């Protein structure tokens, strides 16, 4: 077994509701997997199960021994009553050395905001700080839960560009829940469309032509994504 995390036929039933139904998923080395799906589709629950926060009722999850993973939550409800600089927040309860700290800080471009109080960070700054924290232990797998949900469009574009850069530079695996498929198209290798069960999965291009995807998101969305894929690719190559 070479997979970092491998889930076999897992189901989660919570207060009579089938949140996850017979889901199987493998995360391999250097994968870039994006999970999409409507609200209440069990996306966050799937992440929780894979990280071991929640035990599925049925099925098994195998994790590579001593797997190092980094987790970036959707956002942080900053409690204004805690005075805390960004630099301290990044390092709480983390095992790290000075070299990785420096590397992470320059990778996520947060040199200038390290001494800022958490409560004064903008949305984009906060996401970069959270990303820095999740990268600090040099993870093999980065797990992100809707990382750009609270950003505006240009902020989202910037964030995903940064993520793509880190992905190709570090050669780690990424598992991400995201609605912004049009923005992550270029990087994503595999898309999993989740609606309590796995509706369809495959390369982004295949997915947009899949009838199941079309029935869930509509033809318009697929067209929008196809356009984005095209133009993004050009941009990306120009870069």
């Amino acid at each position, binding site marked *: 077994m070479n997979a970092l995390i491998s889930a076999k036929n897992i189901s989660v039933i919570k207060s009579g509701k089938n949140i996850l139904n017979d889901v199987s998923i493998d995360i391999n080395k250097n994968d870039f997997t994006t999970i999409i799906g409507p609200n209440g589709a069990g996306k966050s629950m799937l992440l929780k199960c894979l990280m071991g*926060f929640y035990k599925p009722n049925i099925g098994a999850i195998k994790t590579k021994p001593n797997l190092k993973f980094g987790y970036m939550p959707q956002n942080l409800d900053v409690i204004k009553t805690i005075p805390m600089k960004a630099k*301290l927040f990044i390092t709480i309860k983390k095992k790290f050395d000075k070299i990785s700290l420096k590397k992470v800080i320059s990778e996520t471009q947060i040199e200038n905001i390290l001494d800022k109080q958490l409560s004064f960070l903008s949305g984009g700054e906060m996401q970069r700080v959270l990303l820095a924290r999740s990268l600090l232990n040099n993870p093999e797998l980065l797990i992100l839960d809707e990382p750009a949900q609270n950003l505006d469009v240009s902020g989202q574009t910037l964030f995903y560009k940064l993520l793509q850069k880190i992905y190709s530079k570090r050669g780690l695996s990424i598992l991400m829940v995201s609605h912004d498929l049009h923005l992550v198209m270029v990087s994503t290798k595999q898309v999993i469309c989740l609606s309590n069960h796995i509706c369809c999965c495959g390369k982004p291009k295949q997915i947009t032509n899949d009838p199941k995807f079309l029935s869930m998101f509509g033809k318009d969305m697929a067209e929008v994504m196809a356009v984005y894929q095209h133009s993004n690719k050009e941009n990306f190559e120009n870069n």
Partner: protein
Amino acid sequence: MALISGLVGCFVVWRRLSYYGESIAHSSLLGAGIGILIGIGINFGVVFICLLFGILFLWLQQSKALSSDTLLGVLAHFALAVGIIVISFNKIKIDLHAFLFGDILTVSITDIWGMYIGVLIAITLILSNWSSLLLVTLDEDLAKSEGINPLYVNILLTTIMTIVVALSLQIIGLLLITAMLIIPAATARRLVNSPEGMVIVATLIGIFSVVFGIYLSVEMDLPSGPSIVVVSSILFFVSHMFGLIAKNE
């Protein structure tokens, strides 16, 4: 006691637990009553019942059907009501006045030793779990991803708060315990920019309030608990006034 109230107070402010502190204080009356009734003494009764209260609360909170403040409102007043009934039994003689408002003169040498030990345990527990406590306070999922069990940390914090409330009861009194916890921490907030700094400043303010408050109470024959709270409140207003002035300049 002043040492620990600043430390615990910061967590009370950060995690919005002031109502929880209030509730533990309410249930301590029941603890005192039961302690006397079954003959294990006030202090043990208070610690026992308060811990039971904390566990019951954490357990009921798991279901998330009701918000914490509603849940606490039910539990605290239930405990208070039963407590009043228990101490109304004839054979229990308790100085209700001292219990509500605190009376330093009721503190015995054994109590003081008990306090030393309790404070030492509480400080050790907090400092050795400092970063876990901090991370759980910030984000429970983030804490889980570092292999911390938030439930364990919450039980720890509940236990520590219970110890502190039980210890402060005789000096501060049931009605003013929460004030002793949150006012030094709230005063410190404006003066610092790190969590450690907030704890240190809150502790210093706590010590000053207790020492000066007790001095006033001895010199002018005032009740000890209220004197301490008045001193710390004055510091609070002064620090916020300076904070506002500094902001405007």
